[in-house]
């Protein structure tokens, strides 16, 4: 049911298709834009067009890239024998903030989720296999999310890659550093207990 004049309703419909934007928010944003100065609205429209024109997927790792390769794939100082597998480009940003990892990345662009019709074929798995044989990778670090879909994806990849004689590791889950045990949520703390290890002395 269209409640508004053509272009306004179109705008609300388009905004409503964005993730996390419900019908009420879509309406609010649409009216904000209608009231905004024309140059403000045009700048927003232009930045969407620019981003779509100039940004694409890195040919090698499927991170976002301006050009053929992303910044990490272009950087020759990064260790090509270490490959970290993530679900989304934003996971790379999180890992980069640690400044611990100096290898390269591979972005699957999702996780296995039959409910959403996503299987290994819909992910960048074939491209991953291709890279492993071509780039001298020695260790794969599985850094998919610690939820059901991420664990399933990690397990799938581990089963696929282990027979090829490559070292496959999974990031650990546990307590946030610098916090108090008292404030840790019960499930994380419970899993941290399960994964306890002996102290070197």
């Amino acid at each position: 049911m269209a409640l508004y004049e053509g272009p306004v309703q179109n705008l609300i419909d388009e905004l409503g298709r964005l993730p996390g934007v419900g019908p009420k928010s879509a309406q609010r944003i649409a009216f904000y834009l209608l009231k905004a100065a024309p140059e403000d609205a045009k700048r927003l429209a232009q930045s969407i067009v620019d981003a779509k024109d100039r940004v694409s997927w890195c040919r090698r790792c499927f991170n976002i890239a301006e050009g053929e390769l992303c910044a990490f794939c272009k950087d020759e100082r990064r260790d090509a024998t270490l490959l970290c597998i993530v679900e989304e480009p934003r996971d790379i940003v999180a890992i980069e903030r640690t400044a611990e990892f100096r290898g390269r990345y591979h972005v699957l662009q999702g996780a296995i989720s039959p409910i959403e019709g996503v299987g290994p074929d819909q992910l960048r798995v074939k491209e991953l296999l291709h890279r492993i044989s071509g780039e001298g990778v020695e260790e794969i670090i599985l850094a998919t999310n610690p939820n059901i879909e991420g664990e399933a994806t990690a397990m799938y990849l581990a089963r696929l890659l282990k027979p090829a004689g490559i070292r496959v590791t999974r990031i650990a889950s546990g307590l946030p550093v610098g916090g108090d045990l008292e404030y840790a949520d019960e499930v994380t703390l419970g899993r941290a207990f399960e994964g306890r290890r002996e102290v070197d002395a």
Partner: protein
Amino acid sequence: MVAGDVAYVEQVQLRDFRCFASLDLSLAPGVTVIVGANGAGKTSLLEAVGWIARARSFRGVTDSALVARGSEQAILRADVVHGERRQLLEAEIRATGRNRVLLNRHPIVRTRDLYGLLRVTMFAPDDLQLVKGGPAERREYLDDLLGMLAPRYDAARSDFDRVLRQRNALLKGGLRDPDDDSTLVVFDEQLVRAGAEIVRGRLRLLARLHPLIVEMYEEVSGSSAPLDGTYQAEWAEAPLHEGDADAVDNLLRQALVARRKQELDRGITLVGPHRDDWRIVLNDLDARAQASQGEQRTLALALRLAGHELITDLSGAAPVLLLDDVFSELDAPRASALIRRLPGGQTLVTTASAIPEGVEPQRFLRVAGGTVEAE
């Protein structure tokens, strides 16, 4: 037990909560009997206390049902005392949209953060369904107790539900893709991990619970009756017992292999704790189908009381006990015996009829016309 060990609710303030436009109520540890006509709001009072513990109604209704007609939100404030510690819970329960819940004036992000505040055991006449209803009711009874004993069971439960949905989607698709087979193997392994944790938990829980249920049934009915329970899993060849707990992983794995074709034909997951039943046998008869209505009521009450006793034993402090309309289940001698032997926490008992002879509560409250008076 020292009163200081037990958490109890000292003050409850309600605004636009069901039939209470504005209510300020003081409560005390020990046994309080709440008297009032049907529809006066006795159960709603228990519902408010229950909400503090779980941030939802035990009546299985959505929060919008708690908001008085014509209002946008109900307000629930409660002081919970635990030893020297006094905590303040404030909840704005909205008819539409997200609730706002503050604990000691700080907003709570996840409902789970509230669970440590207060433990509650609830018995309501609807609990007859624990005995009379389908297997799902009894699974929920067991799983709720497990969640109270260790939060990781709540996590295992939500993990398992998620695995089940993913795996069913895969099975329903009929594994057309050549990759689907290796994807299924991965979800099999996840199903075993989460499913085995739940089954192991239930088996160990049942072993501890059984003697308490027998004891409580005797207590409430005044006579002993042979009472047995078997944990039945379609995917296992024989009923499971506590001694099978360590073998559950392997049993699930074997069943997944054996049932593969059947699961594919039907497009659903047939192996796992989501289809199990805990069958209760009373006097050698199936309690669900063959026990009398009176026996079923007594058994339902015994299940709740046994759970209460177990949580009290294991945690060292009795949860708040809410008994809705419990005297209609019991004759006078049994009612007074029951009240006398309750663990020494806070107990709220509602009744529409006269208080059975011999029951001597510490306090009386009378509910009428949206107000509560102490007697």
